């Protein structure tokens, strides 16, 4: 042990300090990030250059057109007509009231605002997973809110003057049509999906036929049917509102798509759940209501929201039967002699696209959020 103390004789022990090695290559910071993500190889560098050129070619003129050069404020069309190469936001500003409310009479527009508020109060808590009273909230969203709104918007009760649906329009009507489609498609879609999975052959084939026919043809033809054929199908003299006909067509169409989404959920519920419910002595409807549907619907929330996005975009087609939702209101204003300029269509369409985009993007983020939330249980 004491021999070991004379360390000078140990040949494997280093006698002098090692020279300092250079610091490791930086892995954080701007330059290393750029090297990893933009200039990883020759091909990568070429791609980056192409991307930059492409981006500049699009972004620079677009920013010039829509932001820096754009006409934000102008009393009349003259300024816009003189600068046809930039966006004319003044036109959008001047028509904003029309784009939101359509031709809904000015003194009554507060009713539409109340409708917007009620809608937010019903839908936002429903979308928040931790908000309480889900069951009541759902009933409010599907039954109470549509009923209250229809009285509020149509009027004729409680001293509210009646407003003909012919003058409804703009973003407000887009929301009405898509909301009714969404609210109707859930219950009817669930019924159709249950029918399709039924063991009774007649129920099964009837539901298959309805679903597949609706899904196989374009919405435009369904709307044509609702607009033109529905009056033919009803007894002579019975005629109902054009908007109702459009709502009928949209709801039918949306229900068929919803049915397929719900069917996916029903199939994803493990068989043991059905067997367990039956062995407890529950009958079909109790089992469906208490055991199967809560699980099936939760699984397919992302799919349901995606169907809603599709439906929201599809509402732009109701113009076919002369109903003026947001896009057709915007299109109609192109021919307005006070504002018609060469840059008007591009500005108006960009505005409409942005409005649609904000709604649909919000919904798609929500769908992604629920997807991630639901996946937690399956994470390993």
């Amino acid at each position, binding site marked *: 042990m004491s021999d070991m103390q004379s360390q000078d004789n140990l040949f494997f022990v280093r006698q002098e300090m090692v020279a300092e090695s250079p610091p490791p290559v930086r892995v954080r910071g701007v330059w290393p990030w750029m090297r990893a*993500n*933009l200039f*990883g190889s020759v091909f*990568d560098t070429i*791609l*980056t250059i192409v*991307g*930059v050129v*492409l*981006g500049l070619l699009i972004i620079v003129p677009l920013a010039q057109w829509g932001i820096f050069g754009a006409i934000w404020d102008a009393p009349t069309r003259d300024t816009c007509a003189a600068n046809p190469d930039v966006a004319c936001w003044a036109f959008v500003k001047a028509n904003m009231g029309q784009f939101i409310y359509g031709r809904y009479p000015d003194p009554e527009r507060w009713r539409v605002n109340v409708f917007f508020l009620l809608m937010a109060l019903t839908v936002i808590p429903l979308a928040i997973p931790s908000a309480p009273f889900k069951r009541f909230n759902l009933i409010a969203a599907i039954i109470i809110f549509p009923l209250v709104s229809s009285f509020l918007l149509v009027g004729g009760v409680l001293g509210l003057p009646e407003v003909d649906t012919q003058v409804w329009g703009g973003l407000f009507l887009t929301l009405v049509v898509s909301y009714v489609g969404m609210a109707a498609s859930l219950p009817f879609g669930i019924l159709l999906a249950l029918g399709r999975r039924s*063991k*009774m*052959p*007649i*129920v099964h084939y*009837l539901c298959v036929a309805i679903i*597949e*026919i609706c899904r*196989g*043809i*374009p*919405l*435009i*033809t369904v709307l*044509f*049917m609702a607009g*033109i*054929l529905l*009056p*033919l*199908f*009803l*007894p*002579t003299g019975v005629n109902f509102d054009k908007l109702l006909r459009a709502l009928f067509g949209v709801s039918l169409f949306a229900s068929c798509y919803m049915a397929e989404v719900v069917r996916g959920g029903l199939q994803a519920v493990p068989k043991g759940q059905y067997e367990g419910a039956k062995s407890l002595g529950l009958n079909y409807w109790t089992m469906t209501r208490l055991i199967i549907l809560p699980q099936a619907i939760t699984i397919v929330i992302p799919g349901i929201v995606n169907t809603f*996005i599709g439906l929201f*975009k*599809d509402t*732009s*087609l109701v113009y*076919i039967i002369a109903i003026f939702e947001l*896009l057709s209101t915007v*299109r109609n204003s*192109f021919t307005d002699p006070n504002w018609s300029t*060469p840059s008007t*269509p*591009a500005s108006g*369409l*960009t505005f*409409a*696209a942005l409005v*649609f*985009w904000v709604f*649909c*993007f919000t919904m*798609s983020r929500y769908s992604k959020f629920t997807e991630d939330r639901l996946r937690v249980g399956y994470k390993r």
Partner: protein
Amino acid sequence: MAAIDAGRVAGSRDRWYNNPLIRSITIQIVLVVAVVAFVGWIYHNTTTNLHDRGIATGFGFLGQRSGFDISTFLPTTSDSTYGYMLLAGLLDTIVVSLLSIVIATILGLIVGISRLSSNWLIRTIATIYVEFFRNIPPLIVILFWYLAVIAALPNIRDAIQLGPEISLSNRGFFMPRPVLGPNFHIVLIAFVVSLVAAWLVRWWAYARRMRTGQGFPSGWTGLAIVVVITAGTFVATGDPLSFELPVKTRFNINGGWTISPEFATMFLSLGVYTASFIGEIVRSGIMAVSHGQTEAASAIGLRSGQVLRLVVLPQALRVIIPPLASEYLNITKNTSLALAVGFADLVAVGNNVLNPTGQSIEVVEIWMVFYLGLSIIISVLMNWFNARIALTER
């Protein structure tokens, strides 16, 4: 069994109306009666209404002279019958659908692969593209192309010249039209023969590789065979093809080959719009291929392009095909938006037919039969393709 049954008290479960079989039969009979009654009621109402309005039922109107003219791929005049007009519209729908499907697939594949690129910039551009187009209605895309992009092109007098006799203006895209000469069929035959020859080379090369393990550049050889034989015959037959040039008149361009603004709008918009959906389908398909496959492919020395082409894409296709089929169906259905820009597809022509004749039921029936038929054809084709590429398990 008998002992247990004997101890049971007859309860409500044993009543006849709780017997599942009787219940199910009763429900179905009631349903059939209700549906039949409902259809009968609608039928009765419809015939009464049509009778009151003096509209004849049946498809007899298809043989009548239409009295309107539309520009379609089939030559039409105002003397054409309604039936012929609808046929022309149907052809337009099919052409636009096919072209949009091709554009959307190519663009979608590029976008989907770009979204997975290791290059941040390319990835971001692809993401912005997808998130933008997925979240706006296709009708806005169509109107934007039509009212803002194509309408903003210069008029015919100062059309953009893209090449000799090829010009782009707000009246459309004009180019020379190939006119087939009398000997053109010989070139066509030579082309087919060269294709067969190329296929034989490929077959021989495959057989040889299986036998000896030696490779042979059959792709390049085949291409050379096709090009040499076809081009040779083309020169030898002497001018089998000439071009009819577009002639500029004062306000328009006559002759040549024209792509109308409406047609261009339709296939560009639908292609660009649907590419965002197909991009997402491609991305999820590629992500579904397990990482081990990519690593193994790199480990045996394949280059990244080869890894994608030979290992990843064939496996990703299995995930991609089913949703892709429904996207193709969506394109076909979205061509009905042509009504908004006045492109004469089946729905727009049907609308034209429906107004003067009042034959709304028949026209809607034609639409439904056609679209359902097309859906079935595309589904069958894609199912067949899906079965072909499906994983063959041991």
